[in-house]
């Protein structure tokens, strides 16, 4: 699996997107905190966090006895640059070309 595959796979699940949204609101949370907001077993939440970690979307860091989960937005930016920006540029340039063509016809 490539890095992109892992990110897309991680994002393809509503629970995992929900976990990312929770971390976006407030970063650096423990498993217990995240678990308390989900209708899911501790083991289930751990499994989802593992997938997010493998994709690089969540980075963990020890703080005393606790393991804190941080949202890492860098992979999403890379996906954006690779898959979204490129196609948006083409769309914009297609519209710009259309405008030029139509204006030339009028002239």
């Amino acid at each position, binding site marked *: 699996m490539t*890095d992109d595959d892992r990110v897309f796979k991680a994002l393809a699940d509503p629970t995992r997107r929900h976990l990312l949204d929770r971390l976006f609101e*407030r*970063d*650096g*949370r*423990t498993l217990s905190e995240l678990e308390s907001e989900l209708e899911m077993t501790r083991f289930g939440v751990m499994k989802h966090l593992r997938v997010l970690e493998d994709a*690089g979307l969540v*980075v963990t*860091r020890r*703080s*005393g006895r*606790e393991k*804190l989960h*941080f949202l*890492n*937005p*860098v992979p999403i*930016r*890379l996906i954006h*640059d690779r898959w979204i920006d490129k196609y948006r540029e083409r769309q914009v340039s297609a519209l710009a070309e259309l405008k030029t063509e139509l204006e030339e016809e009028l002239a």
Partner: protein
Amino acid sequence: MTTDTHTAVTTQVYRVYIKATPQAIWDAITKPEWNERYGYPGRSEFDLRPGGAFRAIAGPQAQAMGMPELLVEGEVVEADPPRRLVQTWHPLWDEEIAAESPTRVTWDIEEDDGGVTRLTVTHELENAPVTAAQVTSTARLHEGGGGWVMILSDLKTLLETGSSFDS
């Protein structure tokens, strides 16, 4: 528990995997001829010993837009090339941000499998909410935003392809 929650709220962690050696990444962070090629226009100078000075200097473009010449100042806390760099980081680009406490940035460089290196930036932002908001910014570069996400993806692009977003 109080301490942990506090840490949680004021620390930010960013990670990127780059197809490059730890040494190449170390150089790209610490050498002005490299670090002026990605991220915000300007260069960063490091005196790589404990207590040594760190200065981020705005490029001519940024200065023309009203940025001060000295954008960020700080001190090297720990330099262990090419594995770990700890520095303080005190932005000065406006009065509000300059009035905040200096923050702390740790760069961890670890070799992964297959010629890939893992770079983790940990930014500790205690008593610096304005700085925290600005380094998180997800706005586009031309809107003045970008923060760490932009800097690190630009660094990855430069090391892997030889050119950054702007060149």
